[in-house]
Structure formats: structure tokens, C-alpha cells
């Protein structure tokens, strides 16, 4: 009874309310701060010391704002779209392993919500459902800029999804399993993180995930100069906040997936070398969070550094560079795997 219902429920509550939601709100502050520092500014400084309470102030402002639905909007779809884009970003955490099974209060507790056989496919399929939030927001607003932005966004997501999924196939070839925990264990047994075996796959995955989360330099769906703000132009208040939070939740998801697949998940550096056992002072989940944080920082860094792509450049990069490269990488991986191993 306790093992089947209480513990999973507790884990879900902890991951959502102690993990994802604070992380998402503070990602917003981190982004503003890092970009400010990159541009020799201070960023938010007024609310609390060094602006640490800024997310709270933002949340209160967004909740108190008037919630506007345009007259000609498709009311049902307009209401559902922010929810549809938020939910997939949250349910992916069900399969992300934050750590191995540890002993907690005298009983073994696994530091992941569940470990399904098809974990990686689950992540991909849930992410593919997330596209609906963007398409429907643009459609339901019944306004031309959101519609244009949502068409752009969905074309971009569909194109880059192909490349990203192909790189995941080469990961599966190397590890021989679809389970997220199994992939980390395979890296432990292989004595090497997959990023060093599959550098091409990792680079394609990283570029693809920048595009899939609509982040700079691929943030065309939100290009203010051309589209006044993107698919969420007509949204206000809490509904707008949901889109905003979904984007950050998705960033955290792709960082965690990248960490799990390519950078050894919860494993410390060189987990098989006994000399480095002193590194175990940090528990496994801390290593996981550290690695994910590096990715999140790089996301912000890229945004502060690179200019936006043009739409045709974006499509050319996706279809003519990344997808052929991913297919070639998959072929080479398969051949090497059959010939050598």
C-alpha cells in the first residue's frame, strides 16, 4: 500500500512543488540577471536584496492582472491552449532519474518517480504533444500575428524534432535500452559518458533542443520585431504566465534529458576510479542538478551572445545540415557497433 501509492505520490509532490516550480520561477530571475551581467547592467535589484524576491513580485503581478479573452477568439481552445502547453512540460519529470536507489529512513527509495521500459520514447512522445499548445494558442486568438507565429513555431518544432529523435536512436544503439535509468547504468558500465562516444549526436541534440524550446538563436516564434510578441500576443495575466513558465519548464526538461543521456545523469565524474571517491561528498542528485544547471546556464549564455537566425536559415540548418548529419551519425554508429563490438 505504502510502496504503491504513498511514496510515488510523495515523490510527485516533492518533484513538482519543491523542485520544478521554484526552479522555473527562479530560472526567470537567473536569466534576467545573467543577461544583465552580460550587458554590463545590474538586472532586477529593487525587490529584496539583489532582487531575489523579484519572481514573487512577478507572480503577484501576473495573478492580479485582468484576464482578457478577445471577442472573436475561440473561447474553449483559447482557454485550453496554455494548459496544453504546460502539462506535457510537467509530466515528463515522471521518468527523469534524479539519482539511483538510496536508503532513506531504513527503506530503499529510488530517486525517480518511475522507471518505465520505454522511458526515452515517452519523453519524445510527450514533447511532441506539447506542440499543440503553441499551434492552438495562435489559432484560437483569431489574430494574424499569433497565427503567423504559431505556424512558424510548429514548422520549426516538427523539423527539429526529426533530427533530435534520430540522435536519440544512436543513443539507444549505444546503450541497448530505452529506460532512462538503464541508459545511465549503461554509461556506468561502459566507463565513459556518452557525450565522448557520441559527440556529433550530442551537438545535434543540443542545437535541436535550443530550437525545440524556442530559445535564442532560434526564437523566431517570439520575434518581437516582426510578430509583436509571438503566439501569446493576445494572452494576458496568468494564462500568459503559463506559457512563459512552460518555456522554462521545457528548458529544464531538455537540460535534464541531455544530462541523463549524454553526461552520465547522476554519476559523479569518473565513477569507476576509486581514487576519486572523495567526490562522493556530494550526493548523486546534487551531481545531477549541477550538470543540469550547467546546461541551463549555457542556454542563457547563448541567448545573451548570439543573434537570431533568419527563418530560411533556420529551415536550411534543420533539413539540410542537422538531419543528414544525424542520419550519417546513426549509420556510422550502427556499422561500428556491428563491426567492432
Amino acid at each position, binding site marked *: 500500500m505504502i510502496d504503491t501509492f504513498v511514496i510515488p505520490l510523495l515523490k510527485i509532490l516533492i518533484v513538482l512543488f519543491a523542485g520544478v516550480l521554484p526552479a522555473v520561477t527562479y530560472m526567470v530571475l537567473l536569466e534576467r540577471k545573467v543577461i544583465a551581467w552580460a550587458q554590463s547592467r545590474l538586472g532586477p535589484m529593487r525587490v529584496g536584496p539583489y532582487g531575489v524576491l523579484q519572481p514573487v513580485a512577478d507572480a503577484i503581478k501576473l495573478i492580479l492582472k485582468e484576464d482578457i479573452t478577445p471577442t472573436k477568439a*475561440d473561447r474553449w481552445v483559447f482557454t485550453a491552449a496554455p494548459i496544453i502547453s504546460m502539462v506535457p512540460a510537467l509530466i515528463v519529470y515522471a521518468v527523469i532519474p534524479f539519482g539511483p536507489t538510496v536508503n532513506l529512513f531504513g527503506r530503499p527509495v529510488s530517486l525517480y518517480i518511475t522507471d518505465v521500459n520505454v522511458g526515452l520514447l515517452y519523453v519524445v512522445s510527450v514533447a511532441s504533444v506539447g506542440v499543440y499548445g503553441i499551434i*492552438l494558442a495562435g489559432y484560437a486568438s483569431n489574430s494574424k500575428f499569433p497565427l503567423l507565429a504559431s505556424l512558424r513555431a510548429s514548422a520549426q518544432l516538427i523539423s527539429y524534432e526529426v533530427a533530435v529523435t534520430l540522435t536519440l536512436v544512436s543513443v539507444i544503439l549505444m546503450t541497448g535500452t530505452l529506460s532512462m535509468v538503464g541508459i545511465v547504468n549503461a554509461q556506468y558500465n561502459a566507463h565513459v559518458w556518452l557525450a565522448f562516444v557520441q559527440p556529433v549526436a550530442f551537438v545535434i541534440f543540443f542545437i535541436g533542443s535550443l530550437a525545440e524550446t524556442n530559445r535564442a538563436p532560434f526564437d523566431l516564434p517570439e520575434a518581437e520585431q516582426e510578430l509583436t510578441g509571438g503566439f501569446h500576443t493576445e494572452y494576458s495575466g496568468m494564462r500568459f504566465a503559463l506559457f512563459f513558465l512552460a518555456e522554462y519548464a521545457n528548458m529544464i526538461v531538455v537540460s535534464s534529458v541531455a544530462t541523463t543521456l549524454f553526461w552520465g545523469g547522476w554519476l559523479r565524474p569518473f565513477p569507476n576510479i576509486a581514487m576519486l571517491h572523495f567526490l562522493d561528498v556530494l550526493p548523486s542528485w546534487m551531481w545531477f542538478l549541477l550538470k543540469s544547471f550547467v546546461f541551463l546556464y549555457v542556454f542563457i549564455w547563448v541567448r545573451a551572445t548570439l543573434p537570431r537566425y533568419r527563418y530560411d536559415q533556420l529551415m536550411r540548418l534543420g533539413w539540410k545540415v542537422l538531419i543528414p548529419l544525424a542520419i550519417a551519425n546513426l549509420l556510422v554508429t550502427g556499422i561500428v557497433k556491428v563491426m567492432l563490438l
Partner: protein
Amino acid sequence: MAQAIAFYTLAAFILGFAVLVVTTKDTVHSVLFLVLDFLFVAALYVLLNAPFLAVIQVLVYAGGIVVLYLFVVMLVNLKRPPEAHRDPHRLTKIGFGLSAAVLVELGAIVVSGYMKTSPVVAAATETMPVTGNTEQVGWLLYTSYLIPFEIASMLLLVAMIGAIVLAKREL
């Protein structure tokens, strides 16, 4: 018992959404009901202990194909209600005949499924050298069902080349 309740609930939702798909006036809404329908079918696969099939159902149908439907529906403006005039090319009688034939065929399949073991059941009960849902699907596809699998991929290739040729007249 619990499984039967879950099955009939899911089946009710699937049929209900399927009816909504064909009766809703707004085309975009009807596509959305189709997505919901696919998601419930995926839940049905989970109930049948086929997680791989469930995830592929979401990935390919709900997340892939219907997005393209939605594109088409959004780009061609179908918002006006269908006119009340009678379509002179509508082949009502032939349509009825064909659907009756399909119904009889489906009934025959269901009845014959009770009579003898179908090849699918036979394949599922045969011992396989691999464990795990994904591995077993892969094993069956590359042994017993290799030729249908290859023909299906051939068909997809033909469709893809056909689409490219149609879209791009001067190659």
C-alpha cells in the same frame, strides 16, 4: 474487475470522442477530438500491457500526423458551416453498401477470432528469446512479420517520393 471497469470507461470515451469528431461543426475542434481519441486509444494499449505501442501511438498519431492535419485545417479556412444544398455527386447508396460490407467483414473477424487462435495470439504465445515489450515487438517485426514490415516501409517510401514529385514539378 478493475480492469473491466477501466476498459469499458476507456471504450466509452473512445466511442464518445469518435462521435464528436464526425458531428462537430468546427473543423479544428473535430481535429482536437481526434487527438483526444488517439490519447485514449494509447491508454487502452497501456491497459493491454503494450507500453511500446502506446507510446508510439502518441508519438506518431497524436504528436505527428494530427499536427499536420491541423496545419491543413488551419490554412484552408473551413469556418463557414457546410451549405444545406444537396451534393449531386454524393453516392449515398454505394456508401451504405460499402459500409455494410465492412461491418460484415469486421463481424466475421470477431466471430472467427473466437473460433480458432488467430496468428497474432499464436505469435504472442510463442516463446521468444528476448524479454521486454520493445524487444519483443522488434523481434516479431524482424522474424515472423519481416515481409509485411518491409512492404509497409516500401509503401511509405513510394508515398514520400510521390509527394516530392507532385510538389516539385521540375526536378
